[in-house]
């Protein structure tokens, strides 16, 4: 009644004023090929050309200093950034998808440490955390673009849905995207390690070697629908099929250690014996191994990640294990790239970082004692100030 009428009157008054739009020029995001609606799940996340490229990239030698993998690059195609060169010190802004898992927390800590290394060049580092909400991240990007930023770093929460906001930002200032991508090549550079296919394939090849034809492998996955994770499984699935490995199950654990342990226990009970555990994300690796211990079974061959507690268990128990990695050092690279762009230095349009694999041979080189159980070893932060205290040791 009265109050709604006041609101309605207000709305009408506002309608009389000028009309503006923030829709990015050229508009829609996800490469609007007609009928892109829900392609069959099996193929949605498989791209043969990209798959083959990543598998080849694994053997490629990276350019750049070998002791600083975070500034190394594979097959770079450099682009000119002279147009973005400005006088420092700069305001660098960052729209973060979330810090809701240990991988992102280690990355975020490392990124802040990297910013601290460049006090002379960075006047302000403004970061907004979207708390894993696409809608909030769109607002965050708009807010940052509307503010006083010289360059914008984005770690997108979801690929397709952040595309319009990133496109709109590209028109205003240089944009650096890392980790997950966006469906547009408007950012000056897109930083990412080799990729999910390479990760999944490396792990699957190792397990296929270990368990042999007919060996039983249980695949533990986090959740469906995350492109990086889907690619890991897509590559692994093909290798297991080609090598005649018996995949006894593919289960989602949502990275909950209790779920992972229960799932593995169930499979042990049902199958009697399991020779290998493949994981698309190593967070719950130790819990999966404990299920074998509690069932009184020998520990299986396992592919995990560079997570501290897994590496410690690996060393203590002499596991048959391998850890393909998705390095957290890419969070450093994003800051370095932003500064290079603001200096007008060339950067690769797609900055592909190496993706080292931890094996029993080089385990000692990566495992540093005293860090928290959920630390990620490939942070590239060992030489940074305040290491290891800043990372929670």
């Amino acid at each position, binding site marked *: 009644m009265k109050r709604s009428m006041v609101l309605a009157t207000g709305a009408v008054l506002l309608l009389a004023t000028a009309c503006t739009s923030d829709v990015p020029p050229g508009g829609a995001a996800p490469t609007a090929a007609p009928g892109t609606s829900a392609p069959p799940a099996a193929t949605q996340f498989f791209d043969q050309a990209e798959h083959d490229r990543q598998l080849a990239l694994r053997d490629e030698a990276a350019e750049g200093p070998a002791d600083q993998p975070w500034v190394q690059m594979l097959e770079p195609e450099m682009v000119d950034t002279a147009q973005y060169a400005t006088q420092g010190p700069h305001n660098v802004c960052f729209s973060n998808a979330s*810090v*809701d*898992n*240990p991988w*992102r*927390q*280690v990355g975020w*800590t490392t990124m802040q440490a990297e910013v601290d290394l460049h006090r002379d060049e960075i006047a302000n580092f403004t970061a907004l955390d979207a708390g894993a909400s696409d809608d909030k991240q769109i607002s965050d990007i708009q807010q940052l673009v509307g503010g006083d930023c010289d360059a914008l770093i984005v770690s997108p929460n979801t690929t397709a849905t952040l595309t319009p906001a990133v496109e709109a930002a590209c028109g205003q200032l240089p944009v650096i995207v890392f980790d997950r991508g966006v469906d547009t090549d408007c950012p000056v550079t897109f930083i990412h390690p080799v990729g999910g296919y390479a990760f999944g394939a490396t792990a699957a090849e190792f397990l296929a070697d270990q368990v042999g034809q007919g060996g039983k492998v249980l695949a533990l996955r986090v959740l*469906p629908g995350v492109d990086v994770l889907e690619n890991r499984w897509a590559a692994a699935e093909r290798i297991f099929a080609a090598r005649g490995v018996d995949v006894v199950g593919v*289960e*989602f654990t*949502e*990275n*909950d*250690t*209790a779920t*992972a*342990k*229960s*799932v593995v*226990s*169930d499979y042990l*009970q*049902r199958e009697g014996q399991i020779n290998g555990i493949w994981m698309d994300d190593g967070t719950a690796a*130790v*819990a999966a191994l*404990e299920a074998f211990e*509690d069932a009184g079974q020998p520990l299986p061959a396992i592919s995990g990640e560079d997570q501290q*507690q897994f590496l410690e268990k690996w060393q203590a128990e002499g596991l048959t294990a391998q850890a393909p990695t998705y390095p957290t050092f890419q969070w450093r690279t994003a800051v370095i790239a932003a500064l290079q762009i603001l200096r007008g230095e060339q950067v690769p349009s797609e900055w592909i970082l190496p993706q080292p694999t931890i094996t029993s041979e080089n385990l000692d080189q990566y495992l540093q004692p005293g860090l*928290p*159980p*959920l*630390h990620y070893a490939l942070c590239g932060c060992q030489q940074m100030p305040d290491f290891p205290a800043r990372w*929670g040791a």
Partner: protein
Amino acid sequence: MRTLRDRVGAAAPVFGVLLLLLVAIAVVNPNFLEPASLLAYLKRAAPLAILAVGQYFVIVSGEFDLSVGSLVTVQVVVAARLIDGDESATVPVIVLLIGLGLLVGLVNGLITTRLHVPSFVTTLGMLLVLSGAVFLWTGGAPRGSLSESFREPGRQGIDIPGFGQVPWSALILIAVAAGAAVLMRSAWGHTLVATGDNDRAAALAGVPVERVRTTAFVLSALAATVAAILLGGFAGVSAQVGEGLEFSAITAVVLGGVVLGGGRGSVLAALAGALVLEALFTLLNLLGVSGALESTVQGVIIIAAVAYAARRAGRRRRPPAVPEPSPQPA
């Protein structure tokens, strides 16, 4: 006061469903009937079942406790950080956790009863405060690690010669169940149910309604502490350990035929509700119902079970979705 027939009448379906599910699991996987498998099932169900017992006290008194899931997470994360692998710290830290549990329950209870805030809101606020606090304190990633002795109750058991290992979790669950059953038969149990049934009448009859309800919240928080010790023991440190447990616990209680709004239902039926949920997950897993449809099946079964119970209970008044807040002083 409820009559015996009334109690069994409301509770019977859940025991039937439980039996049915266990038989179904045994048909799919005959190994399930071996004592070791049954005990493993109890071990897995124990944390949720204990949470359900705690939640039962709150629900039967006419309130809600949405904070138990995040309390479990807080307890596990705090334990890991304070123990940090040091065996000698285990007992002091467990004492501290119990103290923290008492405090959270007391705050929930006092805000709900003294400030007359609906418990849905109080405990929702507590959920947000606890998860925010743990996030700030840890920067998100849990630190430290649990000692072996802390993990003992959730992970190990006692070996009985000629039989195998009996998990501590199963024994703790049985002890909690027995304690809760005795408590509900005591005078305090009757006043708790009377409070949930009609708090004004109970207050007029001299029941210290506010104190009874506050105690219920404290018991729920203590149950969450025990569940946290078992879950942390079972699977180690994780920042997600308690996620969604509040809804699972409430679901379990309701599956047990306990009426939201208070005053009706038995504690053992609530516990059986948790066992039903766990059996349902096990069965779906065995049948290979992919993770995807599992939620759908769970949703349908919850609705069906409660609808069935409502049918049996006859045409009673439809209880409100959320109980009225505690009576305001006139």
